[in-house]
């Protein structure tokens, strides 16, 4: 979905078209969820910040000046709400989470090794490697890999980064990830069938 299609959907929504609204939520809700999770919101807080962004959009539909940049508007709203929730829950001084490192001491929100959701040993290894990436890389990749893939401008708004830095940073993060992964991981044929529940690491 390109910018023009997004802008057209916004115009239709302004005229009361509920199907266009549903299309916008289908386009962006996964992306907004990934932003909240990349900022390590727990389930309830992530749900709240995503919901607040959509509710606020309903209120401001007629005031959105650049409808083609809706994704960036939503992403910025979620990021700011994450800051607010973080300040509330962590009892930190105002300003502290604006430093990207302010988010990094928090525990990850999902531990799939406990949930048995990884389908084989290769996925388990991929997940462990991801957990060893720097937090900033985890955050960027988590958001970039939302489905459907967000535009770089939207990712930049989500993480308060310059658009031009997204591509190079992404490449650096991928290089780190490759270094962490067993070189053969993607060269061997996939094992057939499930490998069962991955071994727990404590």
């Amino acid at each position, binding site marked *: 979905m390109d910018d023009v299609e997004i802008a057209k959907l916004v115009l239709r929504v302004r005229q009361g078209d509920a199907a266009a609204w549903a299309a916008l*939520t289908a386009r962006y809700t996964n992306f907004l969820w990934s932003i909240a999770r990349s900022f390590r919101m727990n389930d309830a807080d992530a749900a709240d910040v*995503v919901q607040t962004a959509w509710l606020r959009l*309903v209120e401001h539909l007629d005031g959105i000046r650049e409808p083609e940049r809706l994704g960036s508007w939503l992403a910025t709203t979620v990021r700011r709400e994450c800051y607010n929730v973080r300040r509330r829950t962590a009892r930190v001084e105002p300003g502290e989470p604006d430093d990207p490192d302010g988010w990094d001491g928090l525990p990850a929100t999902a531990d799939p090794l406990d949930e048995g959701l990884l389908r084989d040993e290769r996925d388990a290894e991929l997940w462990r490697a991801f957990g060893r990436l720097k937090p900033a890389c985890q955050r960027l990749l988590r958001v970039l890999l939302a489905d459907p893939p967000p535009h770089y401008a939207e990712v930049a708004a989500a993480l308060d980064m310059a658009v031009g830095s997204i*591509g190079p940073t992404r490449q650096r993060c991928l290089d780190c990830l490759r270094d962490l992964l067993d070189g053969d991981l993607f060269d061997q044929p996939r094992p057939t069938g499930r490998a069962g529940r991955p071994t727990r690491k404590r």
Partner: protein
Amino acid sequence: MDRDDFTAPHPGDQDRDGEILDAYRRIFAAVDGTPTDVLAAAREAFHTRDLDGEIAVLVADSRTAGTDTVYLPVRAEPDPAQGHWLLSFAGGGIRVDMQVGEEQGRLLLLGMFSGTSGEEYYLESADGQRRIDVDRLGRFAVEGVAHGPVRLWCRSSDGIRVTTDWVTI
């Protein structure tokens, strides 16, 4: 095209990166996909649209002091470390100033409407809405509010409805 427009440093890396990224995309969707109730709530949000009302926008939030909305405390310094903060809304001819306090996971809202001779006042949240009592000076107190998105609205004696921005509290 502003995505996936990178050049991998070594031949073959680009294909391999694509394969790695596809695997992670699938893993994130399986392990931490958007809950269905979050998707449903996003669709439902459209029903909160109010074409006739006016909006009092969030003009200050002590949690973001020093960033995008500036709060200038006059008396009480907002102190997030003590579990309370200040929100102000203005627009549609009204102003609302509100302190949010937290006690044992439930929230207490203390605030004041100014600029309106409202007849009805409501607090709206994910659970629905509840009428709130506002005294003749515009002051109100609401106890036992759950965390989540909320907004206030009032209807003035001449029938105009003014709604605040939604905020996550």
